[in-house]
């Protein structure tokens, strides 16, 4: 008799792609708005982006129920932090909190592939990229989700320093201006939409800079 296998999974993959790019004094976080299951579309208008603090925004793809639970938890923890410290959490602080929160469920993980973007305490753009169990790293740019395999090589080509062996190490921040970074993100999603069936419908772009946070929506292919 063969071992009984579960015919029910607690997880589902709702697809979608997320990208974040850090600049000298800004950060761009973007995600498409398509939510799928299997080969079907559940909705064309679902936001994967969540503002966690004044200067800290998270985009997550994967299983959106887990994403929503994670967002609620972090929002509650941020409220507690504000009451205890009388100030907003910085992006690096939220980065560590997210990592700890994810690892807390190491043995029943949040099926959530996150990318955190914002401004650090010096006002410079910062992006943190995560796996499902909390391993994270501060980088200049990152992508997660179903389209990340298509998007990441393109971002590397455009944004990565010529050689990792170059000394002194280049800043983990792109030399692009804010509008150039937004255009790059739009280009990247247009390409990903062509070949990834789970990416499309609309693109939500969030830009964080010293003035605050602004949001933009761009149409993508709906097929």
């Amino acid at each position, binding site marked *: 008799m063969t071992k009984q296998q579960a015919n029910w999974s607690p997880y589902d993959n709702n697809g979608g792609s997320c990208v974040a790019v850090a600049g000298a004094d800004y950060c761009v976080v973007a995600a498409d708005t398509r939510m799928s299951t299997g080969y079907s579309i559940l909705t064309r208008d679902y936001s994967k982006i969540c503002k966690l603090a004044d200067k800290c925004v998270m985009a997550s793809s994967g299983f959106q129920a887990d994403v929503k639970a994670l967002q*609620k938890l972090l929002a*509650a923890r941020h*409220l*507690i932090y504000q*009451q205890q410290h009388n100030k907003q959490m910085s992006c690096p602080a939220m980065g560590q909190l997210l990592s700890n929160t994810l690892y807390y469920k190491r043995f029943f993980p949040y099926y959530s592939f996150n990318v955190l973007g914002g401004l650090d305490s010096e006002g410079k753009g910062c992006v943190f990229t995560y796996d499902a169990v909390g391993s994270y790293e501060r980088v200049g740019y990152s992508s997660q989700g179903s389209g990340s395999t298509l998007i990441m090589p393109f971002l590397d080509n455009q944004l990565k320093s010529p050689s990792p062996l170059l000394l002194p190490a280049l800043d983990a921040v792109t030399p692009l201006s804010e509008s150039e970074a937004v255009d790059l993100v739009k280009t990247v999603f247009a390409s990903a939409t062509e070949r990834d069936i789970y990416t499309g419908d609309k693109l939500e772009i969030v830009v964080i800079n010293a003035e605050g946070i602004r949001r933009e929506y761009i149409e993508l292919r709906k097929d």
Partner: protein
Amino acid sequence: MFRNQYDTDVTTWSPAGRLFQVEYAMEAVKQGSAAIGLRSKTHVVLACVNKANSELSSHQKKIFKVDDHIGVAIAGLTADGRVLSRYMRSECINHSFTYESPLPVGRLVVQLADKAQVCTQRSWKRPFGVGLLVGGLDESGAHLYYNCPSGNYFEYQAFAIGSRSQAAKTYLERRFENFVDSSWDDLIKDALIATRETLQGEKLRSSICTVAVMGVGEPFHILDQETVQQLIDKFELVVEDEGPAAEPDAAAAEEGAEEGDAAEQGGDAGQGAAPDEGVAPMEI
């Protein structure tokens, strides 16, 4: 209060059916510096007197934001008050997380009261030595509650607790019928005047009081010092006739007039037709 043989334990009744330890806890509230609360149909104002231990130290925080729609002012053992505020904040966050909606104030005060009651019926605990004026908004409008160490709670239109609160209460008793329809400015003005009553002649300045407001469409926030000082100046501008405990105010009003805005004086005289003419004229 006299020492007697039934007051050692909170779990010991007196032959007259009293729990002395609970009553002593309520005395602790009366020793703290004053806190005042008033509400209209749509807003709640909390005000308190900042008493510092010495000139060298800062004053203790007595007004806490519990959530966007709930705030609390305390009098008595401020350490107990801090702990209870933390509990209230935690309850609000948990409720919001589970139900995606703000915790109704009425529920919160019951939870707080039950927590206080526990401490009146355990031999290894002591009652909380703090009185809380809880102000909040919910679907049925603005509310103000007073939670005392005994575990009782009451809803009020306006109330004052702490030392010399009787003077404030006397003022509020005269004026409370008007509060339901008060505007934002009038409600705060009444709160400041009530606060001034507890000062027994000392000049009211924004540095010795704290004022917080919450209302429909207005999340809880503590007013900054400049705003409070401007509001104080506005109502002290009008030279008041002698009213009870108002003698030093004539001198204070003249000082206020120098720093005040002449245009404001015209505006204040305009709203001078107060509905209750028979009351002391100082409330113009």
